[in-house]
Every structure is written in structure tokens, then in C-alpha cells.
């Protein structure tokens, strides 16, 4: 592997290491204060949690130095910050004996998530290799979505059938399905974006797509509706559909698609609302949460979350100062409210900003990366995270009806942690590609024909034997030269 020339001069990622220390210190500080608030001493397992978290974070740091040296240096510390703060919150609830809160399990899944992310960085040496898996990803995605509906495997919890049980482990396949769908959409759209974008008539100033191109969006719409109806999970349904519409817009720049998508989703939602009582109830809870008749039962959780947050006020009750035991699922679905109670508005705004940094860095690297597939994938993954956050936090803060999605990296729950760490691995991988120095002018520069580019492709051993050239071939096969910007970058992306 001595051919990895760029890495010899690669950045030492000092900024990342320093930021990681800050992130870990915040998490450790949280655990420390939790202990002193609840037990007048260091909480049990403080050093275990701290050392394991630190070891994992720095393992990831070293993996990045070896395998993706140009990758974004802010994303990993930001995620570690969220993850270790949630560690403190779950430890705090665990110490309080709150049924379900399990700090060691949270740590275990965090460890698994980081290890899987590290492995993913090792295995996926070039994000473009995922493009070959476009249709595999589609099948995997659909299978994952359908899994909970299989009798015996899926189980309905709290009115939503989004879980599958394998032995004593429960999984939320939708969390993984969103990655599969992002890969599929990216691969599909990068190949078909021209047809989707350019064909079709104009109507009222909107470029409407051709009827036959509507096929895929109809399929995704159907899948979303199946989720909504079969699994009673508005959040996941919104997530998939929003992801697809967002990526469709990214690929085609056609507002018409968004209008059609939103109209279809709204139509589906209205129909579901008029047919299903549980959807009606959700809407009633949303609009009229403080109605005493609802507060005792249906809107109890939401209202308790509101009470928790209002009690936290501007600066919070401090670590250990709140009453998470009164908010059902304060360690998973409602961890946002529990954090708001103890860290206050200040803490929540800080957490939202950290998420915003991750998402915006993701989008930034989508701009920076040179191949269309990478752009779509990075943009899609960043957007799906933003969307998930919007659905979760929006639900808790009564911006939209409450649904059962989890707060990425913070909520206790294996699937969510694992899936989101994989998302981060992909984001880091793409950012590495985006920031890797290139001999050629990058975005914004007018392209000149570079016939020599492809012939140089032999130099890239980074992607592993064979991967690079194959990818280059497919990109070339797509043969799009419509936008000089993108098309040439795809070719150049191969050229390091």
C-alpha cells in the first residue's frame, strides 16, 4: 500500500483530535455532574464509560487518518459530542432506575456503531463502488421496510409496527432502509436525471414530468403509504418520501417534482386521516395537546415532554435536576425533552446547532465531491438526517404531529445508533473524496477537455483493484455532458 502517496502528506487531523477531546470532556462532565447530583460521587461505571467512549472516538480518529485522511474534521467530534452527551443522559436515567434506560446497552450499541463505521470506512474505499449496488439497495430497502409486517417477526409497540425481533434483540429496519434507499435513489437518479428533468410538458410554469417517468416515484409513494398504513408509522413514511422528493429535486432541479410529491403525500395523508382513527387521534393530539380530556391519556407523553421542557426553561434544571421519570420514553423517543429539562433552552439550541453543523458539512461535501452519484448520496444522507431531526423534534415541540422516530446519536436504541453511524461513515468517506487535493481545477472552473484524465486512472489504487476503473467506466457510460460542471467532474474524480 505504499502507493497511497497522497496520504504521506495527508493532514494529521490535529483539529479533529482537539475537538474530540472537547466533545469527550463535555460528555464526561455531564456524567460527572450526574453522579454528584444523584449520588454524591462519581457515578458507577464513570471510568468505564469515559474510557470506552474515548477509546472508540480515537480509534475512529486513527482509522480516518489511515483511510480517509482528508475527511471532514468536524463531523466526527460533533457526532461524538452528541453521543457522549446522550450517554450522560441515559446514565442519569439509568441511575434513577427508570425502566428501560440502560446505559451499558447504550454504550454497547455506540461501540458497535463506531466499529461498524470504522469497518465501513475500511471496506468502502470509494463511495462510487456503492453505485453498483443501486438495485440491490432498492431490494434491500423494500425488504427492510416490509420486514416488520411479517407475522411473527414484526411486533407492534405503542401502536406502531416498526420493530422486528430476532432473539432478544429488537431492530428498527427502517433506520437501515433509509441508507439503502439513499443509495438506490442516488444510483437511480444519477442515471435517469436527464429524462426526469427534461422530458415533459410545461403546465402553469411548472415543468411536469412525463407520465412514464412517474413510475419510480409512484413506487416510492406506494412504499411510503404501505409504511403509513401497514406499520402506522407516519414518521418513517414521511422520512422516505421526503428523502426521495428531496433527492429528486437535487438531481433534476425541477420544482414540479416537489409540488407533485408534496401533493401526493398530502393526498395520501388526508386519505389516511379520513380513514384511520389512529391518524385522526395523532392530529387531535397535535392540535389540542393541552385539552384535559386528552392529557390524561393520548397526549400524556407529549404534554409531559412539554412540561419537562418548560420546567427546564432558559438554562435548565441542571444534570440530574429534572424529572425524566414522568416523561414516557425519556431515554429514547423523548430524550430531546429530557435534555431540554436538564440543559435548558441553551442546551437544546447548542445541540440543534451541532446537528446543523453535521448536516451542513454533509451538504457542503456534496457540493465539493465531483461525481454525481456522490453528490446525490451525500446530499441525500445529509438531508435525511435533517428530515429525521425535523420529524422528531418537530413532533416533540408540536410543530408537526408526533411520530415515533428517534433522535440520531442521542436516543437509546441500537438500530438508530448503528444506522446513523453508518451514515456518518459514508459522509466521512464522501468528504474525503471531496477534499482530497486535485491537480485539476475543481468546481466553478470551466472544464476543458482532459483526454489524459482517464488514462491516469491507473494511479488510483485507493479504491481497491478494479473498483476505480469500473466506476469510471460506468460514469463515462452515463455519458452526460449536458452540464459541463458535473460531467467533467465525474471524470476528474477518478483522476487524483
Amino acid at each position, binding site marked *: 500500500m505504499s502507493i497511497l502517496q497522497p496520504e504521506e502528506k495527508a493532514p494529521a487531523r490535529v483539529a479533529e483530535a482537539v475537538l474530540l477531546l472537547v466533545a469527550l470532556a463535555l460528555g464526561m462532565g455531564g456524567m460527572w455532574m450526574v453522579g454528584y447530583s444523584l449520588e454524591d460521587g462519581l457515578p458507577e461505571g464513570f471510568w468505564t464509560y469515559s474510557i470506552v467512549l474515548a477509546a472508540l472516538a480515537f480509534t475512529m480518529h486513527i482509522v480516518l487518518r489511515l483511510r480517509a485522511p482528508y475527511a471532514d474534521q468536524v463531523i466526527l467530534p460533533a457526532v461524538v459530542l452528541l453521543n457522549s452527551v446522550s450517554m450522560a443522559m441515559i446514565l442519569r436515567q439509568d441511575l434513577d432506575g427508570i425502566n428501560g434506560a440502560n446505559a451499558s446497552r447504550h454504550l454497547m450499541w455506540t461501540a458497535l456503531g463506531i466499529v461498524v463505521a470504522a469497518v465501513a470506512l475500511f471496506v468502502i474505499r470509494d463511495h462510487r463502488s456503492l453505485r453498483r449496488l443501486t438495485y440491490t439497495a432498492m431490494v434491500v430497502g423494500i425488504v427492510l421496510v416490509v420486514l416488520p409486517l411479517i407475522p411473527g417477526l414484526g411486533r407492534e409497540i405503542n401502536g406502531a409496527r416498526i420493530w422486528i425481533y430476532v432473539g432478544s434483540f429488537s431492530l428498527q429496519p427502517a433506520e437501515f432502509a433509509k441508507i439503502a434507499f439513499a443509495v438506490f435513489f442516488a444510483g437511480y437518479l444519477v442515471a435517469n436525471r436527464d429524462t426526469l428533468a427534461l422530458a415533459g410538458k410545461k403546465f402553469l410554469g411548472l415543468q411536469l414530468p412525463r407520465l412514464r417517468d412517474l413510475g419510480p416515484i409512484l413506487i416510492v409513494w406506494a412504499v411510503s403509504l404501505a409504511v403509513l398504513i401497514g406499520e402506522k408509522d407516519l414518521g418513517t413514511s414521511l422520512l422516505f418520501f421526503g428523502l426521495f422528493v*428531496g433527492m429528486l*429535486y*437535487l*438531481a433534476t*432541479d425541477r420544482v414540479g417534482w416537489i409540488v407533485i410529491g408534496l401533493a401526493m403525500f398530502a393526498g395520501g395523508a388526508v386519505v389516511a386521516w379520513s380513514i384511520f382513527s389512529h391518524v385522526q387521534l395523532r392530529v387531535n393530539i397535535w392540535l389540542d395537546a*393541552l385539552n*384535559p380530556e386528552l*392529557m390524561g391519556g393520548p397526549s400524556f407523553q407529549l*404534554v409531559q415532554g*412539554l*412540561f*419537562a*421542557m*418548560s*420546567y*427546564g*426553561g*432558559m438554562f435548565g*434544571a441542571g444534570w440530574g435536576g429534572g*424529572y425524566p*421519570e*414522568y416523561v414516557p420514553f425519556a431515554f429514547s423517543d423523548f430524550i430531546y425533552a429530557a435534555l*431540554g429539562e436538564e440543559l*435548558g*433552552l441553551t442546551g*437544546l*439550541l447548542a445541540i*440543534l446547532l451541532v*446537528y*446543523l453543523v453535521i*448536516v*451542513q458539512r454533509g*451538504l*457542503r461535501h*456534496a*457540493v465539493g465531491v465531483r461525481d*454525481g452519484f456522490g*453528490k*446525490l448520496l451525500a*446530499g441525500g444522507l*445529509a*438531508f435525511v438526517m*435533517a*428530515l429525521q*431531526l*425535523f420529524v422528531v*423534534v*418537530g413532533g416533540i*415541540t*408540536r*410543530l408537526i404531529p408526533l411520530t415515533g422516530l428517534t433522535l440520531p446519536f442521542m436516543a437509546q436504541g441500537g438500530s438508530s445508533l448503528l444506522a446513523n453511524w453508518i451514515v456518518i461513515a459514508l459522509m466521512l468517506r464522501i468528504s474525503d473524496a471531496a477534499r482530497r487535493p486535485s491537480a485539476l481545477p475543481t*468546481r466553478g472552473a470551466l472544464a476543458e477537455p482532459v483526454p489524459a484524465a482517464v488514462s491516469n486512472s491507473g494511479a488510483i489504487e485507493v479504491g481497491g483493484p478494479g473498483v476505480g476503473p469500473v466506476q469510471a467506466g460506468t460514469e463515462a457510460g452515463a455519458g452526460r455532458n449536458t*452540464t459541463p*460542471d*458535473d460531467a467533467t467532474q465525474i471524470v476528474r474524480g477518478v483522476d487524483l
Partner: protein
Amino acid sequence: MNATLRRLSTVVMVMFLALMVSTTWIQFVSAGSLNENPRNVRGTYSALSRDRGPIVVKGGEAIATSVPVEDNYKYQRTYSDGDAGAAAVYAPLTGYYSVVGTISGMERYANSYLAGEDDSLWLDRLQNLITGEEAQGSSVELTIDPKVQKAAWDALGDYTGAAVAMDPKTGAILAMVSKPSYDPNPLASHDSEAARVAAEKVINDKPRVNSVGGEERFSPYGPTINRTINATFPPGSTFKLLTSAAAIEYDGKTPDTEIPAPNTYTLPGTSTDVANFGGIPCAASQQMTLLEALEISCNTAFLNLADEVGKDGMQRMFQDFGFTDSIEVPMTTSVGAYPGLIGGENDDDSDARIALSGIGQGSVRMTPLQVAMISAAIANDGDLMEPYLIQSVRDSDLELVSQTKPSRYKSPFSSSTADALTKMMEAVVSNGSGKGAQIPGVAVAGKTGTAQDEPRSPSLWFTSFAPADDPQVAVAVVLENEGQSTNETTGGALASPIAKQIMQAAISK
């Protein structure tokens, strides 16, 4: 695609902005109303989970303490260390600190001290803010003397009624007993359902009282009502002290002035005849001195006397005592009722009503504390001191935060009037209806009362102070509807021995 990515990035910005606004809306804009939502237990917890200061009586015995516990409230409010019997003795004072929202008694009216929130504690709060220590409440020391309190409790026995003792020179309340009482401990339970049930039980447990016709009657006051300050009764003959005071102060009467004492008295403007107790004539000559009239509690004499003093004089004296005003001891006391002033039946202030008021009947109603205040004013040369319960407040470091300085509340009459009344009251105890209150070697001044309260049985009264020459304690005792209209069940027979025991306990310290 970069253009759309940038636009998407703007959309993401807007989404996050929406989340920040909605979060701010909950945690800042509407936080106040959410915190006050009756269903929000957090407000209760944060208010209730404090290390409240103890309530202590004279000598340092704590009658209410906060004990650390392992639950959301962190501290369990405990009365008399959980001893139900001892806690009931002090329940009218402490009140109870319930987690279901009701707080009463000292817990309520001295809450700012007990919770450590009073403005006078700002320095402690500043210290806590800097050191990060949890706020601790201040201890509230009462004027209650446990010896006197215990004596009053024991002396009242199983009667329904109340007894209050105060130092006439300062206004400090030495004893405050209300029966039936209750154990505040179960009401302070952290099991909100259990606390609710316990509270409902004692609040609705109205004691049965005697009635003239023998039918079932219940007191309007449950065990949680502090009968000494929040229950009013017709004062009966104890009110003759006030009638006498008005006659002496305004009409120049003396204890030796001869006044009419007819066998029956026809209420002015009516044909209603009122006789004396038991229908017995007061004097063969139908004339007697004011002192003699009070000594045997002659009704017709005082009906006539009140009519003579007139509406203006009687009302003025009632107001000059401050009986139409509420006092904060710190618990808010109930106001009394007098014809034409506050309350009364349709506020009828006809001459007949005024005449009837002369013997504390008709629509006159007073609290036991107010009756004790009549004695206290007489004992203290006409200067009525403001009654109070809080002796001092000390912060958690036992530093004195505040101390009550005795203050004059009212001066209803001159000291010469006070001297005359003292002489008359002494005669009541030494020769008249109040012999039951005699204490060997101590001059006692007192007045009995047997107040009709139809259809209920009469309420029995005794108010007094001792020693007459150097008053240390003024007392009022009421036995609610415990009379049977016989000579064996008058205020003199049943209430005066109780007052005696209370006074003895107060003097013998």
C-alpha cells in the same frame, strides 16, 4: 446539482430555524403557562422538594420538620416526629403541607420563611447561588408554650371546642387548641392519592354536636378548621364585658352604679319578652349595681344597659376592639359579626337587636381569640396588644432573621375603665358565676358565658386573666354546643375549670 444542493441547504436552514423557534416557544415564551398548568407535577415538586425549615415552640421542641427521603420530593414533612397524638395537639398551628396542593396553617402563612424565600433572606439566597448549595428554609419559632398548650389540650378533654391563651402584655399567643383535631402526618403523605383521601376524611369529618331538640346536628367546622381564629360563635354573656366597657367608658357608669334589672325585659319595638337564665329574678328590687349584674350575669340588666348605651356606642366599642378587622397572626383570623357592622342576620340593627347584643346574643358572633382579646385589653390597662404567633425566625445557620416586637393593636378604653372591669371580673370569680376558675393564692378575673345557638345546644364560654394585679395570661375557652340549658352545664360549670387549668399552667412557669 450544486445549485440545488445550495438551495437544499437553505431549506435545511429553514427547517432548523423552525425547530429552534418551536423549542424557544416552549421553553421560553410559553414556559410560564406550562409550568403553571395544574396537571404539571413539576411545579409542585420543585416547590415542595425543599428542605423546609422546622417549626419550633418555646423551648426549642420542633413540631414540624423536614426529613430527607428517597423520592421526588426529597423531604418528607413530618409533624411531632410522626407521633399522631402529639401532632394533633399542634395541628391548628402547624397546619399541613400537602403534596396535592393544599397547604394550611403556619406552613402556609409562614411559607416564605419556611421555604427560605422571604425577601429578608436575600443574603442567604445570594450565598446559595454562589456556593451552589441547595436553599434551606428558615426555622420559625412560635410563641406557643408547650406546657400551656398541653394543659389546654388535656383540659378540653373530649369536648368539641377551642381554647386560646395569650400574654396580655405582649399579645404573644401561648396556647391555641382546637378540638376535634387531626393528625397532619397522613395529609403530608407523598402518596398523593393517600394524601387526598386523608385530607378529604378530616375535612369532611364534621363533629356531631348537641341540639336543643335532640336531633342530629353537626358543627359547620371540621377538624382542619382552627376554631380559635376561624370559627365564630355567639359570645353569650362574655360579651357583657364589652357592654360594660361601653357603659363605663361612654356613659360614665361605675361598678357601683345602680342599674335596672327587671324580671323580664321586653325588647324595644317588639313584644318579645326575655327572661333571665332559668327564669330566676336577678334582684327582688329589680335594681342592682353594675358589678352585681355582671357577677351573677343578669341578662335583663345588660339587655337594658345595651339599649341605654345605644347602637352607636355598642358598634363603636366593637369596632374599637378591632373585631371587624382580620388579623394576621400570621394566619388570617375571621372577623366578628355585630348588628349593623359585618354580617348579622340581614344586618338588622334595630334597637331590639342592639339590646340582644348586650348579652352576646342575636346576631353577634366572635372567635375565641376575639373573646380572649377582651380579657387581654382589660388586663393590660385598656391597651390591646396585637396577637402574634411567630416569636422569631432564624435562618439555616441559626442566625436571627427577624423577631416580633410586641405592638399595640387597639386602645378600646381608658385604664380607669380597665380597672373597673377588672374589679367586676374578679367579683365574678370570687363570688359569682365563675367560681370554678378560682386558683388558690392567685386573684383571677373572669367572665362566664352560656350562649344560645338554637337549634343547637348552647355554647359554653369562659374568658379570664390572671393574676388580676399583674396579668400574665388571658384566656378564652369555648365548648361548642356542649350545654344542656341546666345549671350543671353552663360556662361557669364546665368552661371555667378548663380556663383555670390553662391559667395555672401559664402562671406556674
